[in-house]
């Protein structure tokens, strides 16, 4: 009885590990989707597309490490630094101006936001935006620790995402005073 139970537990553990390590190298074939189809308005011809609030990449270590690479690659570091913020708001704290849900972060990247955040519509493929969104949430400990990136590829400036304590996301209640002035 105990042997069977431990066998089942072991099997489940192994299966979980497989999911964590899954590498989606061959993503959607190019013709199957339009890039960044989400827009500000819900009004659209034909059937409305629904973007799910959950981001499956948040349980996938490979996807999040790709997000971490792309965060440098697409120069998110230029404004947000390695999470501490600079010209843009910090991403490693619990404060969210435009929402902490995965699809809200997706929208922030794709649509851009007032006072500086540019729109990356059409410039970053959908799946990479989701990888970035998963990584951005890992910076404040919003994702499972076992999948969050464990180390930096360059000099450490802060604790790795894996060691970040989960923080309860809270809204700042609007745009900060410093960002209100036209830039």
């Amino acid at each position, binding site marked *: 009885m105990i042997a069977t139970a431990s066998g089942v537990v072991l099997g489940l553990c192994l299966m979980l590990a497989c999911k964590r390590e899954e590498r989606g*190298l*061959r993503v959607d*074939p*190019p*013709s*199957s989707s339009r890039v960044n189809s989400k827009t500000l308005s819900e009004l659209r011809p034909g059937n409305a597309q629904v973007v799910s609030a959950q981001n499956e990449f948040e349980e996938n270590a490979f996807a999040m490490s790709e997000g971490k690479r792309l965060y440098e*690659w697409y120069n998110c570091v230029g404004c947000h630094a390695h999470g501490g913020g600079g010209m843009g708001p910090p991403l490693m704290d619990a404060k969210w101006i435009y929402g902490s849900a995965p699809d809200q972060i997706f929208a922030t990247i794709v649509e851009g936001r007032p006072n500086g955040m540019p729109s990356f519509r*059409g410039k970053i*493929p959908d799946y990479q935006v989701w990888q970035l969104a998963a990584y951005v949430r890992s910076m404040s400990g919003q994702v499972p620790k076992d999948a969050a990136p464990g180390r930096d590829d360059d000099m450490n400036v802060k604790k790795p995402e894996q060691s970040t304590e989960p923080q309860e996301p809270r809204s700042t209640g609007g745009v900060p005073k410093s960002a209100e002035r036209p830039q």
Partner: protein
Amino acid sequence: MSARGRRPRHHALACPAFVFYALATAGCTGSQSILNPAGPNAGNVSRLWWLMFYVCAGVFLLVIAFLTAALVRTPRKTNKLAHAPDTEPDARRERRMRGVVTGAVVSTVIILFVFLVASFITSRSLYALADPNNLRIKVNGQQWWWQVEYENDVASQTFRTANEIHIPVGQTVTLRLTSSDVIHSFWVPNLAGKRDLIPGHETTLWLRADTPGTYRGQCAEYCGLQHAHMAFVVVAEPAEQFNAWMEAQRRPAVAPVSAEQQRGQQVFLASPCIMCHTIRGTDAGASVAPDLTHLASRQTIAAGMLPNTRGHLGGWISNPQELKPGNRMPPNPLSPEDLQALLSYLESLK
């Protein structure tokens, strides 16, 4: 036995012989072989290789000859009875055995010492080409391609290209090697030995090609998923041809002429391409992927993996993950018209 019955046995013998011959000679020719040197560095290395090969082959044959002799030789007749206990060693035999062992040890030490000296001389010769006046080329290894930068004291004269290194025949070039992610290794067997590319550290390699030609190079240090597809070519050409090439590479990209090429440029600038690639003379200036300013002048795409033709380029742009899984370029969902226009534009970038 009939002739018919013997035929298969004949084939069975001929086949392994043919395979062995094919394998033995496959490495001796071609554009990626240490036994086909095209410059002084590779020449010295291959001479050392041949010295070691002939000496070791000689030793091997000698050992096999003695072994065979020992096996087939009939033992010398002695007066002793076969079963008599060997209480007293035979002084003559002992002397002979001592002589044989001493001879073998001494000749082994001498051979190894000769190898040591030859290896030392070869290694010294590899550094003899160092000269501050050499043409300087900086090579940056990245997963999984090579960024090549021709350096110059005048900043506007430097330019970048990828996966293809042109060098003038008969002139020594200094390659400054580094990496921006993991350790790679730069290896053009026809021109020089391997040299590692280490992140955060610079290594130097000098090479000279004395014979014009196109030589294939390959990453020689396992560096991840597509290590096997991280190749490049070195084109050694006469000085005037090389200078013409260099002048052409320094110029910014040609402006699109036809309407389709103009549309292709718009597609390039409005799509994800612009996030990673540079085309000098346009707004595209990102530096994490190969410089495409003179893409059409290169022989290959995807780091020596595919010939640079319109069809391969189209397939590569549409879904690079299908051709080279794990590489850093995402699939690009473009409409067929946009893709064709983009291909026309890229093909015009001579």
